[in-house]
């Protein structure tokens, strides 16, 4: 049975929940069972935000992630608070335009300055979430690129969908060559 547990964490306003939603929707398009959850403070912006996705070809009972195969951390607090839940074989992806320190003992850690890239390439840091999603698509094969692009187009309003798809593409493109912190055995995912 295939089963992946993913957690995305950061700050409210960084589009954390959107990343989870797109991954989840893409997995649905890939024919998988999915549960996606989220938690955030009552404030719409500025407090901690978390989104989780469980993808399985079987039944999913408990909907929350306890040990994750993949952790996307969009700020330092997200790294510090969530690393203890990363499986030893798990993959960490951080936005290193915000995250400044990642412990050396993490086996598979990737960094991409997603916020910086978003500002430079799209003039808005709000695209950082889709850039880092692109990195996720480049690094892993949990969901297909095709499904992710379709999921982005179906999740965002028509006006912004195109730019968001571009942001995913940009992230994927850069993921292949640049920002690897530690080694990764891709076959594991």
């Amino acid at each position, binding site marked *: 049975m295939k089963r992946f547990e993913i957690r995305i964490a950061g700050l409210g306003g960084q589009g954390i929940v959107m990343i989870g939603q797109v991954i*989840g*929707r893409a*997995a649905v398009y890939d024919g998988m069972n999915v*549960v996606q*959850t989220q938690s955030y403070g009552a404030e719409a912006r500025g407090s901690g935000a978390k989104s989780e996705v469980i993808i399985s070809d079987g039944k*999913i009972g*408990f*909907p929350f992630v306890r040990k994750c195969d993949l952790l996307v951390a969009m700020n330092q607090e997200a790294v510090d608070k969530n690393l203890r839940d990363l499986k030893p074989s798990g993959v960490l992806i951080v936005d290193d335009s915000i995250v400044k320190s990642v412990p050396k003992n993490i086996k598979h850690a990737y960094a991409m300055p997603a916020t910086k890239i978003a500002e430079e390439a799209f003039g808005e840091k709000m695209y950082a979430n889709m850039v880092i999603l692109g990195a996720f698509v480049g690094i892993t094969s949990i969901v297909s690129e095709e499904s992710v692009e379709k999921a982005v187009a179906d999740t965002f309003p028509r006006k912004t969908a195109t730019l968001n798809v571009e942001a995913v593409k940009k992230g994927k493109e850069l993921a292949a060559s640049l920002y690897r912190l530690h080694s990764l055995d891709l076959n594991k995912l």
Partner: protein
Amino acid sequence: MKKRSVENVYFWQGNEACAEAALAADCRFFAGYPITPASEIAEHLARRLPQTGGVALQMEDELAAIGAVVGASWAGAKAMTATSGPGFDLMQETIGWAFMTETPCVIVDVQRLGPSTGQATKCGQGDVMQARWGTHGDYVAIALSPNSVRETFDLTIRAFNLAEKYRTPVVLLTDEEIAHMRERVTVPFLESMEIINRRKPKPNEKMFFGSDEVPPMPSVGEGFDVAVTGSTHDEYGIRFTSDPDVHKRLVERLNGKILDHAEEIVETETYNISKCEVGIVCFGCTSRSVYDAVELAEAKGHKVGYVRLKTMWPFPEKTVKQLSKTASKIIIPEMNLKQVFYEVQRVAGDSTKVVPLNKIGGGVPITPEEMLAKIEEEIR
């Protein structure tokens, strides 16, 4: 608007599934008031209901929302509102009125952490007894509790069907976890769904509040000169408070029309209830941990079974009783302080040990591991 005629796969939130199911059940009117974690239902219907010719309205408070829903129902429309604990509090008086006037309507309560304002964004299961006893007087509630997005869809339709069939308000008791999670949902063919509509009176019928167990329901504006009141009334709807028998007859019928059909209304999911040593009675989001825990327990060789309450009220006494005959211990995991526990205790009797497993605060769910630990503790 074209109706869905194919099986479709969606990635819906529980709240979205609830709203879409309302459309599938032919809901024509929604009135609500913003409240976390139920607002997505109002937002979704505000967009979708007009597309199907229906009306979605945001009222000035929950008192107005439920009032408008009952009004719409008397105007012949299937109608719904959605709220959470604090709003559910405000609606209780009108829910009693809907019960007394035999008005079909659906009230969705997306449970959050109470009492009072509690924690708006966090999950709780503390409204179980409120759904049963929320309004004053002798009344019987119907409440359904889904544990997945797909089941939220199914039970929303069922809530409308039961409301229409028994001419009574029905509560869909969901929770923050189920309401906000997104899942892969396969929606059945619209044609394959059973949609029930209220029985309408024949042109010369006059008794809309008695004689039949569930009397026919006219709409206003149809020339029936229907008199509707929450006061004790006779079979014709005319207020009648001087004869104790009139009240007794009315209220006993209103209770009886639900309790006498409990078997038809009650739905449960059961697993291994005739062979288990330890039984579990669970509902809503908490039951998802039970699925995992039972697998883990079986892997260790334990015989565990469960009853999951899809219908909370009327309480599924028969099935729980059955479980208590085989299981020597019954665990009741709930995100409240023993609301279902006492019901199980009442039904199970003294020969079965009834064990609470409660967790409140922060919306942190009971995990499969905690559930397993409790099972092993009881098996030891």
